[in-house]
């Protein structure tokens, strides 16, 4: 009996498999040593190793001895959790349970930054279509700019399942890199004088519990009437938020924020890795998608900052917005708000931008889900 029969995995190993195992190790390193989105990147990295060992029983494989397909657990998870969108939607319940909308009630006008900072999504979609991707693929690549992992997964799994692996890796990696990506873009677009603007007119008023309870219900009804196909995204987010705010489901709210979020994140990460097989991942497309993901994040920041500067044209002195706040319109919460607050303090240690930054950042969380819903609605009409 030869070595090939004894250790068939070695016989089937190609350089592509080795590269993918290296990618898996790199993701695990980034998760542990650099703390880049460890909850997602670590399971994805480990999963990438798991699916790139030839004849891995984690994937559905043809058994060479019998010629029959052997169902692998990761394929079962994929079909049950990603293809049906159950995992990302469960994550939305958890995220909804974590979001406090009261900062938005204090500064509702900052909600608009949640719209402006989705600019990168559409610009990237245009760019991807110029590079030869079809409309569904281009939209899936553009949605990386939502800076919102579950939204990216929902859109990509529906429109371009073959690109799900690189899109998820790009989305989560860049979310972790917000502190590195945003500051240079903001500095390039703003003057020192603009970065020193204080937003002292932000309110600290108390918000009624009833209003906070009604908000997710009303938003769901309105969003459902305007764009029914966005309801799965917005509805699950708002359901999680209602569980949080209602005051009678504290145990469920805590479970959603902790156990549900942890369990589904664990399964989501390792299941997405099932798409990171060498034949799907080692392609020029992957590099292009990763580059376009960065492009999307940069132009999200651009959109938010430029919109703030535009609004300042119409505002009186003393009521001007610090344009850095615009960059918080992306969904990476609370990282983006923290980055902007720290940038503000670096310029002026007595400039406290945290509250308005949080408000814009919460707006970004809604904006990214709305963007996902709009793309899910529009693309099938045109594709």
């Amino acid at each position, binding site marked *: 009996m030869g070595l090939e029969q004894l250790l068939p995995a070695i016989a089937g190993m190609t350089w592509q498999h080795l590269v993918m195992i290296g990618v898996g190790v790199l993701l695990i390193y980034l998760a542990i040593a650099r703390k880049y989105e460890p909850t997602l990147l670590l399971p994805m990295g480990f999963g990438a190793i798991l699916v790139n060992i030839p004849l891995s029983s984690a994937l559905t494989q043809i058994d060479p001895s019998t010629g029959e397909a052997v169902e692998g657990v990761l394929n079962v998870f994929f079909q049950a959790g990603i293809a049906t969108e159950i995992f990302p939607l469960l994550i939305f319940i958890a995220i909804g349970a974590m979001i406090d909308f009261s900062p938005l009630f204090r500064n509702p006008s900052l909600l608009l930054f949640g719209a*402006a900072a989705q600019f990168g999504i559409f610009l990237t979609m245009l760019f991807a279509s110029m590079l030869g991707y079809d409309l569904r693929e281009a939209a899936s690549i553009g949605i990386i700019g939502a800076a919102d992992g579950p939204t990216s997964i929902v859109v990509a799994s529906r429109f371009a399942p073959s690109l799900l692996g690189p899109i998820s890796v790009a989305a989560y990696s860049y979310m972790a890199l917000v502190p590195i990506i945003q500051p240079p873009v903001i500095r390039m677009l703003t003057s020192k004088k603009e970065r020193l603007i204080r937003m002292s007119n932000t309110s600290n008023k108390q918000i009624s519990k009833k*209003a906070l309870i*009604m908000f997710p219900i009303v938003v769901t009804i309105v969003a459902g009437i305007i764009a029914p196909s966005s309801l799965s995204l917005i509805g699950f987010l708002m359901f999680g938020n209602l569980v949080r705010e209602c005051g009678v489901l504290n145990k469920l709210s805590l479970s959603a924020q902790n156990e549900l979020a942890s369990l589904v994140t664990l399964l989501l990460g390792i299941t997405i890795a099932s798409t990171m097989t060498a034949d799907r991942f080692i392609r020029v497309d992957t590099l292009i998608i990763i580059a376009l993901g960065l492009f999307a994040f940069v132009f999200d920041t651009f959109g938010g900052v430029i919109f703030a500067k535009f609004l300042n044209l119409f505002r009186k002195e003393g009521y001007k917005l610090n344009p850095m706040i615009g960059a918080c319109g992306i969904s990476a919460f609370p990282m983006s708000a923290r980055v902007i607050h720290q940038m503000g303090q670096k310029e002026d240690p007595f400039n406290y931008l945290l509250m308005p930054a949080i408000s814009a950042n919460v*707006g970004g969380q809604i904006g990214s889900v709305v963007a996902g819903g709009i793309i899910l609605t529009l693309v099938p009409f*045109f594709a």
Partner: protein
Amino acid sequence: MMTPIFEKALLIAAIGMTGIFLFMAVFYLLILLLDRLMPYREEKPDEENIVEFETEEDEEEK
């Protein structure tokens, strides 16, 4: 450069960005409305959530 796919993508981008702003504007108005209809009032804490602790003084009284 203006392929049919690019033209469609351009149209989606235009409608999409407008749509997001419209959605957010509607949510903005909803927030203003809810805030006006349901202003904050001092809310009594839920009695079930009040946990009574025995202080040393209570024990001394006993």
